[in-house]
C-alpha cells in the first residue's frame, strides 16, 4: 500500500493525478486556514515591518544590517513552517480519520498520490509566497538583491527538505485532524521563537542562540540570512537542516500509517 502503483497507463495516471491535485487545490482554497497562515500572515507582517521606520535603520547590534533585512528570511521560514507543520499534516490526518486513504487504496491509484498532490499544492503555495516576499521586499521596501542567489535557493530547498518530514511525523503521531492541528501549533510557536520571530537571532543570549543554531527553523533562518546578506551560507546550518531531513524522514517512513 505504500508503494506507488504504476499499473495504469501513463496518460490515465496523469489525468488521475491532475484530478487529485485539482481537488486538493480546491480544498486548500475552500478552507483557507492554511493559506491565511502560510501566505496571509507573512505578507501582512512584511508590510507592517516594512512600514516601521526603526526597522529600516542599519544597526550595529544587528551586525550593521537593518532589522527589516533580517526579518525577510524569518518571514520566509514562517511561511514554509506554516505549510509544513500545519498545511501538510492536518489534511493528511483528516483523510486518514475519514478513511479517504483507506478507500483510495482499494482503487487503481495509491494513497501516496494524495501525499504527492499535497506536495504539489503546498509547493505551489510556498513558491508564490516566496516570490511575493522577496519581490515585495526588494521593490516596495528597498531590500537589495540577494548576495548569493544560489545560496538562497539551496538554503530554502534544504529548509523544505527539513521541515516537511517533521509535518509527516506530526501526521503520523496524531490520530485526528484536530490533534494534528494542536501538535502542529505546539511545535510551530516555540520553533518560530528560535527562528527569531520575536527576538532576532543576533540579539539572542548565547544559550538561546545555541539552541537556535540546532533548531530546524533557526538553522534555516541562519542559512537564508547569510545567503541574502553576505554570501554562500556556512556549512553548519545546512548540515543541521540535512540532519533533520534524514532523521524525520526516517521517523515518518517508520511511523506514518495510511489507516
Amino acid at each position: 500500500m505504500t508503494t506507488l502503483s504504476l499499473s495504469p497507463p501513463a496518460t490515465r495516471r496523469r489525468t488521475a493525478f491532475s484530478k487529485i491535485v485539482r481537488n486538493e487545490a480546491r480544498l486548500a482554497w475552500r478552507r483557507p486556514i492554511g493559506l491565511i497562515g502560510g501566505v496571509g500572515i507573512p505578507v501582512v507582517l512584511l508590510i507592517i515591518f516594512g512600514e516601521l521606520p526603526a526597522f529600516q535603520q542599519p544597526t550595529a547590534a544587528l551586525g550593521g544590517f537593518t532589522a527589516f533585512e533580517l526579518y525577510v528570511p524569518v518571514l520566509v521560514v514562517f511561511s514554509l513552517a506554516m505549510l509544513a507543520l500545519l498545511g501538510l499534516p492536518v489534511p493528511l490526518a483528516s483523510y486518514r480519520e475519514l478513511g479517504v486513504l483507506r478507500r483510495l487504496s482499494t482503487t487503481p491509484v495509491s494513497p501516496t498520490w494524495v501525499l504527492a498532490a499535497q506536495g504539489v499544492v503546498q509547493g505551489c503555495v510556498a513558491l508564490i509566497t516566496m516570490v511575493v516576499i522577496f519581490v515585495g521586499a526588494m521593490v516596495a521596501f528597498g531590500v537589495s538583491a540577494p548576495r548569493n542567489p544560489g545560496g538562497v535557493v539551496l538554503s530554502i530547498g534544504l529548509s523544505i527538505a527539513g521541515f516537511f518530514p517533521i509535518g509527516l511525523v506530526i501526521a503520523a503521531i496524531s490520530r485526528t485532524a484536530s490533534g494534528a492541528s494542536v501538535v502542529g501549533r505546539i511545535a510551530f510557536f516555540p520553533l518560530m521563537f528560535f527562528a527569531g520571530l520575536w527576538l532576532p537571532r543576533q540579539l539572542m543570549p548565547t544559550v538561546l542562540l545555541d539552541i537556535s543554531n540546532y533548531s530546524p527553523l533557526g538553522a534555516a533562518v541562519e542559512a537564508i540570512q547569510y545567503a541574502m546578506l553576505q554570501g554562500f551560507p556556512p556549512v553548519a546550518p545546512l548540515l543541521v537542516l540535512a540532519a533533520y531531513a534524514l532523521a524525520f524522514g526516517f521517523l515518518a517512513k517508520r511511523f506514518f500509517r495510511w489507516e
Partner: protein
Amino acid sequence: MGNSGNAGAGLALRADRPQALSWPRPDAGRPAVEIAHLRKTYGELVAVDDVSFSVAEGEIFGVLGPNGAGKTTIVECAIGLRAPDSGTIRLLGMDARADRDEVHEVVGVQLQSSAQPDRLRVGEILDMYQSFYREPADVKELTDALGLGGKRNDYYRSLSGGQRQRLSVALALIGRPKVAVLDEMTTGLDPQARRDAWELIEGMRERGVTILLVTHFMEEAERLCDRVALVDNGRVVALGTPASLAAQARGGKSVRFSPSAPFDDRVLTDLPEVTRVGHEGNHVVVTGTGELVNAVLFALDAAGVTARDVQLNSSNLDEAFVALTGDASTARKEN
C-alpha cells in the same frame, strides 16, 4: 423483482426501465470470489479462522453475522486491504494482493465508515474517482440512476446520511466493476433509503455484477442474497440459501401458546412431529415439522389443556441466526 411498481425514488437501475448504464457481461463458469482456509489473527485474537466459500459470477452472496464476528476482516482480506495469515483468496482468478493492480480495476468497494472531505462537491469526488479506472461509468448517468443527479453540485457536508451512503455506493460502482463488495451498505439508512438501496442491488444483479454483501440485517440477506455464509466467532457456522439455513436451524416451524393449565412436557415430546419444547414465561414454544399445530392442539385437548393465544411461526433466517450463533441480542436488535 424489479416489477414491484413502486416509485423507487429515481433508482432507474431496474430491469423494467430503459437502461442508460451499460455494463460488461460476466464470463460464465468462473467463480468471482474464492476464499479457502482464510485465517487472520490480531495478536492473540483470532479474528477469522479457516473460512472458506466461493461466490459464482452474477451471484449475490451475503456474509452474515453478529457484530465482531469477523465479517469485515473477511472482506478486507478479500479485497487485499489486509494480508491474511494463511489461506488463499482469488478474485476472478486473480490473487487479491499479488495481482492487486488488476483486482482494483474490476472490484468496486464500499467500506464501512469511509467518508469524504466536507468541502468537495459530489461531482468533483466522482469525477476524480472516475479518472482512476480503465472503463468507468458516466458520472451523470450513475448519479441519475442513484437519485443523486440533483446533488452533483452540492458539498459533501450538506448531504444526508442516506445520500452519503448512495455516494459511497456510486464510488463503488464508478469503475463499472465485475465484483462489488459492499460492507454494511444499509446500516444507518432509514427504511425508505434502505429499500431504495435494495432495489439498486437487485438492479446490479440484472447486469450480472457479482455482489459480496456484508450485513447483520436479516431481512436484507433474506431479500437479496442467493446464498449466505453465517459467520460467528470468525468461523463459517452455516452456508446455503437463506431458506435452507432457516430450515436447517429449526427443521420447520414453531407454535407458541399459553396453556390454560400446567401439563407434563411429555404430552408433546412424545409426538413424532415435535422436536423441541421450550418455556418462555407463561408461554410454551414447540418446534417441529409436519402437521405440528394439529398434533399439538389435539394432544393438549386430550390432556385436558386448552391452548390460548396461539401463534404459528415458520422459521426464518432470523431464527437460524439465533439458533446457529446463539446470539439473540444481535439478531433482534435490528428488528
